[in-house]
């Protein structure tokens, strides 16, 4: 099997796929032969991302979704099924990451966090599982974070919403395993996205990482793509932690 053919004939949907880690995942899936559906709230950026893939000779198509609104997800799924006829891979990557302490968090801020990061994962997975169940094949990969396992004074709502996601991954796995739909997660540590590079937390984190560096978005995409592939035939309900060793210390 050649590298460019691993996902040949498969369709992969990636939420929040227009930029950052999401776009790196889209690119790697496309390089390995998948037809990639870029699902994003920002229609313009999604179209731009699809165009970029096209310029590299890869296949990508943009769909607008708001992961907090089930009807938009169903519309995107139906459009994908109309365009391609099937969908084998879903990557729940869309998420928000605002800073706020216990004192600063507003009720609206709390609700929005859980709406996007937790409810969004529930609604997206529920929307896309049916075509996978029908085909008796599917791979769903959801992005967690190492913050889900540790105290996080600067983003308690983010950490809690992602802890909820880790629980959802296990429920999906138990529910969908008999249908040969495998559900797993990837919890990244420090990833040097453009946004992270502009932040003040990344330089503070680097000395604490045993590997001595942050991950590139492409590094993280490898874990997602492996779990999304047919090389993975026996792992479900698990979340892989890729933190450069940070989680051990």
């Amino acid at each position, binding site marked *: 099997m050649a590298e460019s053919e691993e996902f040949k004939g498969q369709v992969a949907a990636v939420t929040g796929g227009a930029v950052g880690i999401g776009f790196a995942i889209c690119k790697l899936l496309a390089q390995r032969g998948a037809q990639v559906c870029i699902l994003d709230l920002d229609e313009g950026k999604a179209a731009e991302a699809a165009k970029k893939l096209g310029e590299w000779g890869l296949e990508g198509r943009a769909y607008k979704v708001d992961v907090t609104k089930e009807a938009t997800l169903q519309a995107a799924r139906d459009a994908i099924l109309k365009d391609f006829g099937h969908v084998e891979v879903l990557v729940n990557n869309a998420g928000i990451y605002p800073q706020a302490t216990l004192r600063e968090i507003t009720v609206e801020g709390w609700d929005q966090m859980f709406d996007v990061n937790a409810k969004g994962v529930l609604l997206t997975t529920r929307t896309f599982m049916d075509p996978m169940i029908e085909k008796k094949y599917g791979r769903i990969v959801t992005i967690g974070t190492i913050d889900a396992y540790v105290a996080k004074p600067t983003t308690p709502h983010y950490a809690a919403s992602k802890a909820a996601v880790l629980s959802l991954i296990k429920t999906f*796995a138990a529910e969908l395993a008999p249908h040969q739909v495998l559900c797993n997660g990837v919890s990244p540590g420090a990833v040097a996205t453009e946004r992270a590079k502009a932040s003040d937390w990344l330089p503070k984190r680097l000395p604490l990482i045993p590997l001595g560096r942050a991950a590139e978005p492409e590094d993280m995409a*490898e874990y997602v793509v492996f779990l999304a592939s047919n090389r993975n035939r026996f792992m*479900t309900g698990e979340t892989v932690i890729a933190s450069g*060793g940070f989680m051990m210390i």
Partner: protein
Amino acid sequence: MSDKEFDGQVAVVTGAAGGIGFAIAKLFAERGATASIWDVDSAAADAAAKKLKDMGLKAHSQGLDVTDEEQIFAARDATLADCGQIDILVNNAGLYPEGTIQNMTREAWDRVFAVNVTGPFFLMRALMEHMKARKFGRMVNIVTVDAYMAKQTKPHYAASKAALLSVMKTYAIELAPHGILVNGVSPGAVATERAKLSDWLEPHTKKTPVGYSAEPEQMAEYVLFLASKRNMFMAGECIIASGGFYVASA
């Protein structure tokens, strides 16, 4: 990933004359590596290496008892002399004997810890300097879902694998700064030839949500992924591949 992702690399797999170990060695060789088959049964190691060579693959064999550090040094030196380098170590050799709290003997306890914990500890130590000098290495330890759960029929086995998890993390911290990533794979039910003859595989498979047990080749995929350059940021972690068994029972 290409067809020959491990081209030019040498992968040592312990306990590789049969079962999951041989499936791992074979997949390494199919993806371009020289598979160095280390086994306590040196005749079986030779036969396994010959089988791979007959398929046109690159293989090497070495007999050793992993509980004896002198034999580990000798195996390392012989492999380096024959193959030139070692990029990957898979600690797969292990014992899986029956036993209960009531009938456990000190000898049985010590023997399981010698093979399942002491062996991997000294194997990793014996190979780390070579990998450090080359600023690259991947080590993968075969653990088990039993390491996380009560195991009335094999308390010594489960405890030894829990200890291996700890050893694995210590090596991961020690070696990460040198570009050597140390991780583990915890299999659930795997349909090896030996397991197929056992009385545990069928009930375990029934409790596995995906509805089947893994083929050894399927387990090998996780080991190869962690041993590859696709894995650039994971250290000290053990991935559980149990067909959902662990999630359903935890």
